[in-house]
C-alpha cells in the first residue's frame, strides 16, 4: 500500500462520521437567522426556521388558502365582527404543558404590547386599518376576537409568515424580566442548538400532536417530524452550497436559476421547483418629470419583450405574469392573464405624443444572487435602447437600493416584492398615497378605494370583480410592470423522501425522511 492510499484511507476513516450523518437533514440557508423570537427581529430565513417550532391558530394551505391549525374550527358572526376559535384538544407545548385559550390570550397581549416589537402589531391595532377591539378566553378551548369593522384580510393576516402566524408559545419562552429566552412552541420540532453564524439545529418533538389530514398541506395538514434532527447551516457562498449538494453534505438548498441545467446533470440530486408569490417588477416613479407621463410608461411597457426577459432571467423556468396575483391563486382569473405585449409601432407613436427627446432614464438594480434584479435590467435596457428609449443602469448594493426605494428616490427600479398570498395584501404592498408612503409605486384614489373595499368584502365572487377591475386599471396606468412570480428552485438529495417547494417559498422539513 503506497503513502497516498494510506493517507486516503486514514482521512476517510476519520472523516466518515462527519460525512455520513444520515439521521440529520442538512439544509443550507444563505444567511444566519436573526433570532428565534417569532415575528420579532426576523427575516425570511428566520421565519422559515422558526415556523418549524411554533404554530398559530391558522395557517396557509398548499394553495395559499387559510385553514385552522391550532384551532379546530373558526366561527364568524353574521356581522363579520366576531371570530370564535375552538382550539384543538390535547395539543402540547415542547415542555409538556397542554395548550389552552389562556395561553392564546397571554400571547395576544404579549404581541400587542409595544415592548415586544412584534412586526405585525400595526396590522391589528388600527394603524393600517384593521383593529382588534377585544379578546376573550371564555373557556379553556375557546378564544374570541372582536374587530372594529369587518375585514376580509383578518384570517390571512393571522396566517402571514412574517407575523409568525401569531405563534402561540408557552409563557416560559420569556424570562422573568420579559426578555426573550427560547421558543417553547407546539411545532413538530424543538430548538436544539443555535450557534450564531454556523447553524441552527432542530430536534424532533416526540409529543407533537399533528393537525388532521392524510398528507402535508402547506403549514396545516399532516406535520409529523420523521427525522430526529434537522440542521439549517448558514452558508453565504453559492459555490460552496453547490459543492455541499454535490458531495452529499447538504440535502436541501435553494439554487439560483442559472445553476439549474448544471445541477440537473448531477445524479445524486433532484432539482425541484415551484412558483412562489414573490413578485419581480420594474417600478416607475410616477412623480418623475419624464415618467410622470403615462404615455412614457406605456411606451416602455410596449418596448419590452417580457417573455424574453422572463425566459432569460429565470432560465426558462418562470412564466410572464403582469398581475399582482400569483399564478396558482384561486383569484388568478382570465382577466388577471391580460398583459402587455411588445409593439414597436405603438412605442414610436407614444414617444412622439409624449414629446420624448432622448432624455436618459436611469434604471436602478442590485446584484443579489437571490433575485433577478440585475439580469432583468440588462435585458430590458437593451430592448429599450433598440426601441429608441435611452436608458442607463445604476447598480446599487441592496441596503442602498432599499433606502432609495423607501424614499421613492428613483426613476425606474428593478425590484422584488416579498410574497403576499391575499391579493388585497399584495396590492397594498405597492399602492397608496405617496405623500404618506414614498415607497408606494401606485398613487391612485380609485385603486385605493377598490383595495379598501377588497379588505372589507368577504365574498370571493365580489372580491374577484374588485381585483379584476384593479388589474385593468393597473395595466392602463402602468405605475409598475410585474414580470413574473419567483420560481423557487431547490437542489434536493435523492436520499430524501417527501420534500417539496411550495407557494410560500420556505422549506418544510416535516413529513420528510431518508429513503431506507
Amino acid at each position: 500500500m503506497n503513502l497516498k492510499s494510506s493517507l486516503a484511507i486514514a482521512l476517510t476513516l476519520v472523516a466518515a462520521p462527519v460525512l455520513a450523518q444520515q439521521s440529520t437533514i442538512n439544509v443550507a440557508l444563505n444567511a444566519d437567522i436573526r433570532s428565534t423570537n417569532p415575528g420579532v427581529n426576523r427575516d425570511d430565513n428566520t421565519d422559515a426556521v422558526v415556523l418549524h417550532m411554533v404554530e398559530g391558530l391558522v395557517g396557509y394551505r398548499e394553495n395559499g388558502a387559510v385553514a385552522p391549525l391550532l384551532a379546530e374550527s373558526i366561527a364568524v358572526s353574521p356581522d363579520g365582527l366576531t371570530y370564535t376559535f375552538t382550539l384543538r384538544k390535547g395539543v402540547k407545548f415542547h415542555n409538556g404543558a397542554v395548550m389552552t385559550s389562556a395561553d392564546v390570550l397571554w400571547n395576544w397581549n404579549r404581541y400587542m404590547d409595544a415592548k415586544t416589537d412584534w412586526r405585525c402589531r400595526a396590522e391589528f391595532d388600527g394603524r393600517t386599518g384593521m383593529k382588534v377591539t377585544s379578546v376573550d378566553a371564555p373557556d379553556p378551548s375557546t378564544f374570541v376576537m372582536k374587530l372594529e369593522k369587518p375585514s376580509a384580510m383578518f384570517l390571512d393576516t393571522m396566517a402571514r409568515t412574517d407575523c409568525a402566524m401569531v405563534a402561540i408559545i408557552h409563557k416560559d419562552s420569556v424570562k422573568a424580566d420579559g426578555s426573550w429566552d427560547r421558543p417553547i412552541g407546539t411545532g413538530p420540532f424543538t430548538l436544539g442548538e443555535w450557534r450564531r453564524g454556523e447553524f441552527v439545529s432542530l430536534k424532533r418533538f416526540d409529543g407533537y400532536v399533528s393537525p388532521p389530514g392524510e398528507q402535508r398541506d402547506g403549514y396545516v395538514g399532516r406535520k409529523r417530524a420523521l427525522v430526529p434532527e434537522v440542521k439549517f447551516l448558514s452558508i453565504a457562498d453559492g459555490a460552496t452550497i453547490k459543492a455541499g449538494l454535490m458531495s452529499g453534505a447538504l440535502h436541501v438548498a435553494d439554487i439560483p436559476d442559472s445553476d439549474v441545467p448544471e445541477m440537473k446533470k448531477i445524479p445524486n440530486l433532484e432539482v425541484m421547483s415551484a412558483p412562489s408569490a414573490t413578485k419581480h417588477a420594474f417600478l416607475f416613479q410616477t412623480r418623475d418629470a419624464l415618467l410622470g407621463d403615462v404615455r412614457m410608461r406605456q411606451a416602455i411597457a410596449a418596448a419590452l419583450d417580457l417573455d424574453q426577459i422572463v425566459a432569460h432571467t429565470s432560465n426558462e423556468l418562470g412564466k410572464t405574469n403582469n398581475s399582482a396575483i400569483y399564478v396558482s391563486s384561486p383569484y388568478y382569473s382570465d382577466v388577471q392573464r391580460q398583459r402587455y405585449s411588445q409593439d414597436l409601432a405603438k412605442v414610436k407613436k407614444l414617444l412622439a405624443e409624449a414629446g420624448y427627446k432622448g432624455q436618459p432614464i436611469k434604471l436602478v438594480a442590485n446584484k443579489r444572487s437571490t433575485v433577478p434584479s440585475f439580469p432583468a435590467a440588462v435585458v430590458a435596457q437593451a430592448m429599450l435602447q433598440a426601441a429608441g428609449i435611452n436608458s442607463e443602469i445604476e447598480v446599487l448594493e441592496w441596503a442602498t437600493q432599499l433606502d432609495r426605494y423607501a424614499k421613492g428616490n428613483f426613476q425606474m427600479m428593478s425590484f422584488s416584492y416579498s410574497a403576499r398570498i391575499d391579493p388585497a395584501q399584495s396590492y397594498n404592498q405597492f399602492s397608496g398615497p405617496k405623500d404618506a408612503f414614498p415607497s408606494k409605486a401606485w398613487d391612485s384614489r380609485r385603486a385605493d378605494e377598490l383595495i379598501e373595499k377588497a379588505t372589507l368584502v368577504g365574498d370571493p365572487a365580489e372580491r374577484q370583480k374588485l381585483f379584476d377591475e384593479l388589474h385593468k386599471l393597473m395595466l392602463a396606468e402602468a405605475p409598475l410592470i410585474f414580470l413574473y412570480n419567483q420560481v423557487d428552485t431547490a437542489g434536493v438529495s435523492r436520499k430524501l423522501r417527501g420534500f417539496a417547494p411550495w407557494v410560500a417559498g420556505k422549506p418544510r422539513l416535516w413529513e420528510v425522511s431518508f429513503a431506507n
Partner: protein
Amino acid sequence: MLRFALTRILMALPTLFIVAVSVFVLIRLIPGDPAQLMLGDLADPASLADLRARLGLDRSLPMQFAIWFGNLLQGDLGQSINSQQAVLPLIAQRFFISAQVVLVAVLFACLVAVPAGVIAAWRQNSSLDLTLVGLATLLLSIPTFWLGLLLLLFFGLKLEWLPVVGYVSIGEDTTRGILYLVMPILTLFLHEIGVILRMARASTLEVLRLDYITHARAKGLSEGAVLWRHAFKNAFGPTWTLIGLVLGNLLGGIAVVETVFTIPGLGRLLVDSIFARDYPVIQGCLLFVAFTYVLVNLVIDLCYPIFDPRVTAE
C-alpha cells in the same frame, strides 16, 4: 523594553481614536438604514420610526457618537442591532476562530517559505531558483477564493477526504475540528508562501552581495555557515517586518476564505454586518482590527533584538 512598549501603546491611542471617529462617520455616510433593512420592503413610516427610536437611530449623530464613545471608554462596545448580542464577546469569539486559522497558516508558511527564499537566493538564477520563484509568483497570483474552491473540488468532492461545508471547533471535537480547518489553512498557507518566499529571497540576495559575505567566504567558512550565521540573520529583518504586516492583515479578516469554507470568523462577521448596516458591530470590528494591527506590529518590533542585536528597544 517595558517603557518602549508602553510608549508605543500610548502612541497608538490617537490612531485608535481617529479610527473610531472615521469609522463612525464613514459608515453613516453610506446610504442604508438598519431599521429599514430589518423591516424590509413593507416598512410603513410609523413602524420604521418606532424601530429607529428603539435602536437609538433617531438621535443626532454627535449624540450617538458621544453615547457610543462613552461606553467604549468603559470597555463596552455596545450591542448588535441584528443579533442583540454584546459586541465585545461576539468579536472575541469570532476572532479566536479566525486567529487559529491565520496563525497556523502563517507559521507553516514561514517554516517553508523562509528557508526556500534563502535557498533560492543562494542558488540565484539556477533552475531551483527559477522553479521556486515561479511557484511563488503562481501562488501569489491565484486569488484565495479560487484556490479555496479548487481545494474544495479536489479534496472535498473528488477525493472525498475532507468535509465540504460546516465547522466544528477543535475544543468540541479535536479530530473533526482539525479536518474542518485543513482546507482553509492550506489555502492561506499556499497564498502566504508566495508572499514570504519572495521577500526572503530578495532580502537575502541583497545581503549576499555585501562585502562582509565575501570576506566570510574568503576566510574559508563553509557555505552553510556563511548563509545561516552571517547572511540569514541580517536578511531576516525585512521578512520579519513583512510577516508582521501579513499577520496584522490576516488577523483583521479573512472574509473570503471564511465565506468559501463556512468558517464563522471575524471577517465574515464584519462583511455580514456591513451588508446589514449593523453599526455597533462594524465599529467594534474595525476598531478591534486596528488594535490588533498595532499590537502585532508592536510585538514584531519588540522581537527585532532577538534576530539582530544591533537593534535595541531603546
